[in-house]
């Protein structure tokens, strides 16, 4: 048996059709190390003299800090430092900026504002001693009433959470609005049918298998800080650390090693990172911080938590005319939402979905509560999960009231291909789409009509079977720098490509994989463009000293932005290669033809030079054409002109046990269209993972709180994520509608399935419960909650 490594080695390809360039199923280059336990994740890093840091967290949601006694912890023989908020305040480091231009306490100084908030940290010789030290700190709290219910946060007598903000007298965070209120009101006044529904997208958590952590290593002699960190955006983090710490940016090196899943959880800067940097500055030694699962769930970036009143207007014949919504957004104690600055509600504006409507309007109020900060995470594409869930539930509510088939209602209202590029009523310019074939395909794959017949028969027998349809349009690839920045950093991405003398290549990315397979797919993109086998192309990401600046991987933006950069930098190198080839073949540049990996003289294929020949000449001793420097490399920074708008048609079949109210997902068909497909195998894996998120959110997951603000979901015993048993066998399909503005026609796809699957599953459950006269039930649809719905009183999740 040949080993995988042998088969990943470059081969000779005499037959042009067998060239290993281009898009297709290629086994992953990163697998050989992961499969052996040779990945290098943050907690695998061991440095000489390394110390361990542990954080003391608030046991209560809202309280004044009366006193902190650290003497017993200081006296522990293995403890080297104990640091409180007061200590950080002396250095001006007690507070840090968030990605939404709010501030967040690194360590609490005045009071604690959520359970799990950072209060003090201990640095010790090993991780066990650091935890011992934390146990020895004594904090006296003066307990305050907490604000937990987002609906009551703005009541006049609600306790004030953010008294740190000057002049702040209430828990109001921000207001936001989009669409045309008057035009929408007119549409609603004249519509035959108006359906209103209160729809909650509960708070959930990305819960990557690897928690957040870092190793900070400050070298006092060089004044150099190296930070290994679980970050999806290493360059942006470097800039923020420079601004916060006062260290010069060229003396800060962020290294994102292998990351054990991100899912948006690893975009923000967490207090633990800042504490570790401070600890290394103070002790002069490397300091490691790795949070445990409970800390991850109760203190790092949550997702969703939108309370939405949705309205949809239509004619009695089912033509959708307008959509209107009022949203109450729970942002926790600090506004840590990771979104482009001009988009405090992310891209929620795409809530008009995939439909050709006349008017739309959204009004949003965001509030502070005594909970952990976050909001944008868990494959949400900046709040598109919420937008798609809202519109896809509303369309089903409309179908329910009109007593029409939900798939037919969608087919009737979908945007048509000739309408693209389509400007939505909230101003989003959808790049391309051919929606109906995708929905028809998913209906054919699952056998939609047969299923409806089966359902009718089962209803006769009192069996509960539901069919849920969801059609979504995503908006990914943030984004055009004129509109989109994070803390002033434009959302463009760099890429650098170097071809070595022997024709091997290294491509350096500004984005950062957390399992999405970038080491493989970027090699494929470059291979396709420059004709070098993917196995001869090394992909480098994550190290800010080694890679060009860019904003990182989240919002499915890697392929749209960095993927475009990789294609374009390859073409830039190819242009130079063509000039060098013209000198080698002694013809003009215009007389050369590119043939994936070589240039030949037009009309004379025998007169050719390969990219490898050219690379050697570029670095060699011979003459190069006039004005051409040696070497074969280029760098670019790609500023996308628009987002990409992948779409998909999902259909889910569930069976519900009428005796226990347990929901079983029997089948799920997902047809995704993300334009040009770079690696079919990897896309399928992305879709499988995202659909499984959907099962989790729709049926199992919730970050819940009691009235005192205790987080009830602080472990994997309480925060349930799907195992192999709850997860069905996925059936995937695709159509291909390329993005017209993207260099290779590719759109992002990583988050599509997480966005599109929850409404399909919920629609299926509600459809199954139709005999009970239920039009809506909120997630998570656990047996007890489905049971409540079957008794005629569906419970709100919060």
């Amino acid at each position: 048996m040949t080993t995988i490594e042998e088969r990943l080695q470059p081969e000779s390809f005499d037959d042009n059709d067998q060239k290993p360039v281009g898009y297709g199923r290629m086994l992953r280059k990163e697998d050989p190390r992961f499969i052996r336990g040779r990945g290098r994740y943050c907690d695998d890093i061991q440095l000489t003299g390394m110390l361990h840091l542990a954080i003391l967290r608030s046991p209560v949601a809202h309280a004044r800090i009366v006193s902190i006694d650290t003497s017993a912890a200081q006296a522990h023989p293995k403890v080297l430092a104990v640091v409180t908020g007061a200590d950080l305040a002396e250095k001006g480091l007690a507070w840090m900026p968030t990605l939404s231009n709010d501030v967040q306490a690194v360590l609490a100084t005045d009071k604690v504002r959520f359970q799990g908030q950072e209060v003090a940290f201990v640095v010790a010789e090993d991780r066990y001693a650091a935890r011992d030290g934390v146990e020895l700190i004594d904090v006296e709290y003066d307990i305050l009433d907490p604000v937990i219910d987002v609906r009551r946060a703005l009541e006049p007598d609600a306790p004030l959470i953010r008294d740190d903000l000057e002049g702040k007298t209430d828990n109001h965070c921000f207001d936001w609005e989009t669409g045309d209120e008057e035009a929408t009101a007119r549409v609603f006044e004249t519509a035959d049918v108006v359906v209103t529904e209160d729809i909650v997208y509960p708070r959930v958590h990305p819960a990557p298998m690897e928690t957040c952590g870092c190793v900070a290593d400050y070298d006092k002699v060089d004044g150099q800080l190296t930070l290994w960190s679980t970050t999806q955006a290493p360059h942006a983090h470097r800039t923020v650390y420079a601004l916060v710490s006062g260290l010069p940016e060229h003396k800060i090196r962020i290294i994102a090693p292998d990351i054990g899943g991100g899912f948006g959880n690893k975009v923000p800067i967490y207090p633990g990172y800042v504490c570790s940097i401070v600890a290394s500055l103070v002790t002069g030694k490397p300091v490691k911080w790795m949070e445990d699962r409970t800390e991850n769930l109760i203190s790092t970036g949550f997702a969703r938590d939108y309370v939405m009143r949705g309205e949809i207007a239509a004619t009695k014949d089912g033509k959708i005319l307008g959509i209107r919504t009022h949203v109450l957004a729970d942002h926790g104690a600090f506004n840590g939402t990771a979104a482009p600055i001009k988009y405090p509600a992310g891209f929620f504006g795409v809530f008009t979905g995939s439909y050709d409507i006349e008017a739309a309007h959204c009004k949003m109020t965001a509030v502070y509560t005594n909970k952990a900060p976050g909001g944008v995470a868990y494959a949400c594409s900046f709040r598109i999960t919420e937008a798609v869930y809202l519109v896809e539930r509303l369309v089903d509510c409309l179908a329910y009231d009109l007593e029409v088939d939900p798939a037919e209602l969608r087919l009737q209202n979908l945007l048509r291909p000739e309408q693209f590029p389509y400007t939505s009523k909230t101003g989003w310019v959808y790049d391309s789409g051919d929606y109906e074939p995708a929905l028809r395909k998913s209906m054919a794959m699952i056998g939609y009509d047969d299923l409806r017949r089966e359902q009718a028969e089962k209803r006769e027998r009192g069996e509960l079977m539901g069919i849920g349809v969801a059609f979504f349009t995503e908006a990914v690839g943030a984004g055009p720098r004129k509109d989109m920045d994070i803390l002033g950093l434009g959302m463009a991405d760099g890429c650098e490509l170097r071809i070595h003398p022997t024709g091997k290549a290294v491509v350096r990315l500004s984005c950062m994989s957390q399992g999405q397979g970038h080491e493989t797919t970027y090699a494929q993109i470059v291979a396709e463009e420059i004709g070098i086998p993917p196995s001869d192309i090394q992909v480098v990401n994550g190290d800010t000293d080694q890679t060009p600046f860019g904003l990182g991987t989240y919002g499915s933006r890697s392929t749209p932005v960095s993927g475009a950069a990789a294609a374009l930098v390859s073409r830039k190198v190819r242009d130079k290669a063509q000039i060098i080839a013209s000198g080698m073949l002694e013809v003009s540049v215009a007389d050369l033809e590119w043939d994936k990996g070589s240039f030949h003289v037009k009309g004379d294929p025998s007169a050719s030079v390969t990219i490898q020949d050219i690379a050697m000449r570029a670095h060699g001793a011979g003459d190069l054409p006039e004005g051409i420097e040696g070497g074969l490399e280029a760098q670019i920074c790609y500023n996308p002109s628009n987002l990409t708008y992948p779409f998909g048609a999902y259909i889910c079949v569930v069976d519900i046990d009428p005796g226990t109210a347990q929901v079983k997902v029997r089948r799920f068909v997902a047809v995704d269209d993300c334009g040009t497909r770079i690696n079919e195998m990897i896309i399928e894996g992305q879709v499988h993972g995202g659909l499984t998120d959907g099962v989790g959110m729709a049926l199992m997951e919730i970050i819940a709180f009691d009235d005192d603000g205790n987080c009830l979901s602080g472990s994997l015993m309480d925060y349930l994520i799907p195992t192999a048993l709850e997860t069905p066998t996925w059936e995937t399909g695709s159509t291909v509608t390329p993005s017209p503005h993207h260099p290779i026609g590719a759109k992002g796809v990583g988050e599509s399935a997480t966005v599109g699957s929850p409404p399909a599953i919920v629609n299926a459950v509600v459809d199954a419960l139709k005999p009970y006269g239920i039009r809506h039930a909120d997630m998570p649809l656990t047996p007890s909650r489905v049971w409540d719905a079957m008794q005629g009183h569906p419970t709100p999740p919060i």
Partner: protein
Amino acid sequence: MRVTLTVNGVERTADVEPRTLLVHHLREVLGLTGTNVGCDTTSCGACTVHLDGQSVKSCTVLAVQAEGCEITTIEGMATDGQLHPMQVAFMENHGLQCGYCTPGMVMASTALVAEAEAEGRTLDEAAVREGLEGNLCRCTGYQNIVASVLACARGDVGNATEVQVRREEVPA
């Protein structure tokens, strides 16, 4: 306390505190960082290793409890430079993404297949899903993991082509 374990066929002796978890002993004292930690409630299985042939979660075993035991970690799965067929199956079937659950998943899977073989049972999809219930994965949605285990169980390993090039045209 002094503890002696046979890890991946090599006897390793070290001083440990009685409270030291086996997973930390493997990772931090013996330097075998393939075994991962994903939770604090014995739920995720990222720390799964073989202890005297049984698949166990090493976050829920004290190092001193393993005194005298034979332990196999992911680093010990390849022999004589050849990967274990389960490792190859995971690569060929795209049974991993971020790779963090993978070591534990491979250990649990090999124990599952070995147990079925010993009992003369043929594994089907349902049995694999049930057998891996103790191992959480956030990336793959399990489907390709199940496919990997089934492929390995039926000996369908080592046949994947490296690249299957799609010949569709790409827009300029």
